[in-house]
């Protein structure tokens, strides 16, 4: 019973093995399409390197034959010289070929790697934002991004190596066939045990590898916790060091024991298979003695023969090893192709005109659910925003404020309903022309490790050298004074990554606001822009905001309800829909959710 289950398992593995190898074709098509010239060079190198061993063996045989036939002849016959020259040539070619072959292979590897990386980056740029929020998809993205280009190339390199081995093997077999038909047969039969053992080992290696994946990730999570800044404070404060190290140890020991168990089995099997190899060799050697007694072999053939057999066996084991490596890589390559086939964000469509908004933005019955989630964030929201209107979006944590603005920006597609800009459905519009009209500071804005100037210019990258514009934006964001005080002003490099200056959270926030302001947009969105700011800075931001927002459509999200008085209209999100909307006074008069929240907050200042 257990045996047949094991067999089933093996059949499943073999099926999986086959389905993986289908990707080989895809891989080669892809690589040929991005680097056809390089591939041609590789192929020529591969074939020549594969044939060279035969050339040297053959010329060795002929040379020895020629010498042995010299007998007592006087002088130096031309055939001897010819074969000797050929042997030397073969040796020189082999070594030059190896050196330049390795060099070109390394270089081509890097070029192809860079091109594949470019492919991955470009593809990533074309994915929609929502795909980044889905855990499973994101994992795939991470796997596709992390070092995959190395695997893609190593697959290729190993494939070429295997081709070299196959060519050498076949040419040697043919050579040996000419000596006697039985020799290749014995050698092939002899490699069967070896091959079977190797296949068995591959299968075992997978099973273990797959079983350990999750635990390996946990292990590296512990490693990260112990060594990075992320948790350094809490580990010291709460004395978590020994606990974490203990957990790591326990898990590490467990995984290690499993791996060692496999290696122990491996080495036992390896013994058997190498024993088989040696026996084959002994058998062939006895054969040669036998042929010699029959007078079937020339002197040169003895010399060449032994070398050929040894070379055959070493190439055979290298070939199997390469196949194992390729197969291992192919498991990840599947991810890569799945990744390349992910649906892309459609960006082309009806272009929005450059003139300013007249009809405004209208949401019609829009709903949104994150991919992979079964709970909608909001549903059937109707909302019309007039050009130049100032809107405050409020609501509890998780009420969908940030999601709503991402839908408005065309970063998320509504799961139902539509968003109209100037009467054009965003799904049919050219998103690039829409996004040019928008700017935003997100709650989790990014801290770029580049200069202050570039950090701001990122909001309008074409203006990266327009100091005036950048300075103006910084002034509006209240960041100018702080930037002036930095060591190199606007050219100060920020972030720890490259030894730049580290700003406080609030200072970073000001830089991010300047980034949003540098873009001359019609729709300005601020998602909790002042959460980390001190009161003075907060007031400054909102005062400036009124100037910057002049004539623009603005939406801001804030938990500071007092600030919402600045808005023409306050929209309260609750339970996946718009609960209330109106001006501050209207909402206070309504005495609903908003009024309750406002009173909670204002009591601190009563």
């Amino acid at each position: 019973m257990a045996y047949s289950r094991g067999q089933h398992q093996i059949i499943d593995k073999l099926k999986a093995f086959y389905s993986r190898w289908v990707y080989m074709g895809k891989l080669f098509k892809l690589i040929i399409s991005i680097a056809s010239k390089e591939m041609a060079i590789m192929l020529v190198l591969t074939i020549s390197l594969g044939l060279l061993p035969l050339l040297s063996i053959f010329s060795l045989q002929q040379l020895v034959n020629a010498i042995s036939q010299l007998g007592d002849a006087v002088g130096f016959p031309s055939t001897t010289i010819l074969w000797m020259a050929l042997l030397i040539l073969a040796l020189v070619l082999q070594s030059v070929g190896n050196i330049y072959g390795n060099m070109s292979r390394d270089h081509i590897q890097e070029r192809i790697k860079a091109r594949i990386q470019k492919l991955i980056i470009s593809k990533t740029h074309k994915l929609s934002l929502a795909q980044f929020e889905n855990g499973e998809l994101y994992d795939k993205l991470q796997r596709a991004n992390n070092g995959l280009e190395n695997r893609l190339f190593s697959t290729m390199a190993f494939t070429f190596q295997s081709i070299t081995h196959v060519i050498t093997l076949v040419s040697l077999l043919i050579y040996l066939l000419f000596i006697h038909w039985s020799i290749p047969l014995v050698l092939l039969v002899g490699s069967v045990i070896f091959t079977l053992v190797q296949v068995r080992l591959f299968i075992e290696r997978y099973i273990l590898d797959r079983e350990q994946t999750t635990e390996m990730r946990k292990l590296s999570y512990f490693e990260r916790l112990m060594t990075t800044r992320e948790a350094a404070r809490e580990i010291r404060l709460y004395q978590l060091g020994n606990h974490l190290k203990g957990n790591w140890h326990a898990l590490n020991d467990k995984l290690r024991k499993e791996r060692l168990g496999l290696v122990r089995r491996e080495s036992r099997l390896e013994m058997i298979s190498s024993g088989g190899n040696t026996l084959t060799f002994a058998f062939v050697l006895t054969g040669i003695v036998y042929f010699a007694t029959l007078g079937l072999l020339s002197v040169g053939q003895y010399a060449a023969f032994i070398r050929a057999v040894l070379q055959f066996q070493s190439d055979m084991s290298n070939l199997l090893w390469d196949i194992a490596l390729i197969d291992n890589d192919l498991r990840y390559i599947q991810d890569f192709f799945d990744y390349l086939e992910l649906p892309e964000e459609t960006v082309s469509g009806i272009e929005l005109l450059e003139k300013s908004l007249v009809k405004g933005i209208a949401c019609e019955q829009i709903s949104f659910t994150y991919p992979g989630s079964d709970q909608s964030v909001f549903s059937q929201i109707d909302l019309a925003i007039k050009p130049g209107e100032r809107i405050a979006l409020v609501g509890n944590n998780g009420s969908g404020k940030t999601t709503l603005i991402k839908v408005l920006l065309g970063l998320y597609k509504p799961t139902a309903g539509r968003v109209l800009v100037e009467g054009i459905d965003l799904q049919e519009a050219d998103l690039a022309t829409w996004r040019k009209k928008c700017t935003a500071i997100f709650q989790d804005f990014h801290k770029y490790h580049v200069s202050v100037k570039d950090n701001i210019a990122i909001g309008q990258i074409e203006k990266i050298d327009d100091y005036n514009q950048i300075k103006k934006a910084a002034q509006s964001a209240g960041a100018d004074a702080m930037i002036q005080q930095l060591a190199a002003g606007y050219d100060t490099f920020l972030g720890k990554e490259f030894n730049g200056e580290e700003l406080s959270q609030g200072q970073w926030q000001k830089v991010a606001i300047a980034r949003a302001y540098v873009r001359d947009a019609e729709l300005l969105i601020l998602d909790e822009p002042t959460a980390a700011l001190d009161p003075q800075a907060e007031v400054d931001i909102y005062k400036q905001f009124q100037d910057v927002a002049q004539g623009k459509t603005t939406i801001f999200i804030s938990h500071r309800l007092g600030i919402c008085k600045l808005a023409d209209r306050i929209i309260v999100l609750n339970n996946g829909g718009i609960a209330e909307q109106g001006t501050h006074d209207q909402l206070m008069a309504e005495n609903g959710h908003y009024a309750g929240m406002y009173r909670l907050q204002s009591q601190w200042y009563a």
Partner: protein
Amino acid sequence: MQKKIQAIRMSMKNATEVWGYLKSVLWQASKPLTLILLMLGLFSGLTLIAELLAITTLINRLVEYDPSHGSFGMAIQSLLPWVVIFIGAILIKQAAQSIQPYISMQLQEKASSILKEHIFSKALQLDLESFETEDYYNQLENAKKAINHRLTWALESIGLIIASIVELVVVIVAISKSGILLALVLIVGSVPLIMINLKSTKEFMKINYQQSPTKRHSQYWMGLSTSRQTAAELRLFGLGPYFLGKWERLSEQLIGELYTARKKMAWLRVKGETILILLLAMMMIGIVFAGVKGTITVGALVALLYMLNRFEQAIGQVSGHSETLADFHYSFQYIPRFLQAGKEELASGLQAPEVIEQGIQFENVSFTYPGSTKESLKRINLHIAPGEKVALVGENGAGKSTLALLLLGLYQPTEGRIVVDGVDLTDINPIFWRRKAAAVFQNFVKYQLSATENITFGNLADADNEQKLTQVAKRSRIDAVLRQLPNGYDTLLGKEYENSKDLSGGEWQKVAITRAYYREADILVLDEPTAALDAQSEYEVYKQFSQVSEGKTTLLISHRLGSARLADKNINLQAGQVVEIGSHDELIGRNGPYATMYHLQAEWYQ
């Protein structure tokens, strides 16, 4: 440039230290296994003697064998001992080769666990300031890479180099029998090749070192292109092409530099190899002449050719493995370097007072971050009475969080001292001191572990107290949320694993607050605990604040001056200096900067 080369030289000087460390790790892992692994290499070198002896005799006999006089049986009888020796030698060599991976793996696993343990212990012992420097991360990164570089490769390489040297000696001795001159030529001819190989290894190490900053830059741009954190901005601001361009430029530069170096080295190698091959060819011609003149048998001739071939292979092995060894040394040295770098935290000292009676006194405390020239705190003098609730307010970057970290003993003042009941805090064992403290940091850790662990990490000594767990969770209003999770408190939180559940920002914050409450500490630090919370949650947190902080010395950092009213004493920090101290009412009455700030905020709620 000059400096870098000097740095490389310095590292060479440290070689003994590095190898001393390696030896101690291997000894600790397993002395017998280390020795066996080394011996295996030597052993396989020695089998060559048997192999050579057998093969030359075999070939000689076969060549001299005259098929017309004698039978297969006779031939076998005379040859059998040599066949057996030959096969035996190969069998022993292969057996050694198949147990080698097992031994090597076992040793590797043990040794790398020891190395990791050293690295983690070091990271956990370092003081918090070390985590603020770029140096630390570079060194950590390098040390981690070094662990992946298999230790046993070094051992195997040493073994194989010894084996190859044995082979070389055997071949040279064998050849010198045919003529001392031949052997001498052989030795002299291989010197340039070895020199060239050493030179190219050094050259590549240099290139590697020089390229590492550029490499990190290009990886950074790649990361920006593909990470979740930048996804929204990248799409909104249309940054894709810009990032891609930056990455591409750097990556081209790296590839170009490497290619130049590779070409140069390949050419050198070709020259070296050609010299060797030509030498060998000249020797062959000499031998053939000898053959022609009849001073040497054909069998000996064939054997010589066979030996020359082995000689060439052995030379290749020596230089190849020397390269591996040099590579290994280059990367491995980062581990001892990491273990020596940085400042470790004091792990000894006085007991912390059981109950703080006189309070905590800051005396002229100044603090400067490592690598910074600006003082974050300047001559702070203040007194915190036991059980006092202190609110710390002030602008962004005023040094509020830094002051809290000093109080917790996570940073040491660069000048002045913090005195607890008359004892300098630096004299108190930080472990004892921190047992008394709990904190919710601005960027608290979201442990990708179970909810239970997330909370009990606050006090591991009392980790199994379920009653306390739910009680504390109820108090911070997170109990209901955690109960609803698929596995209740045992649910893994975060996005890391398939079956983990992510919480919203506000919920995570409540978990962090619960963790701090779980500690029942005397000193409680809350660093902007409500920045990301909605009005309702904020209200709840502050409502509990008075309850939880009952009897505790509490430091509350907040931008919401309304909440500062909860404190007994408010400290207004500006640019690292205390500008005002007093209760809320006092400060309002004084009508200074605090009052201005407060009114600014209160205005919104009038």
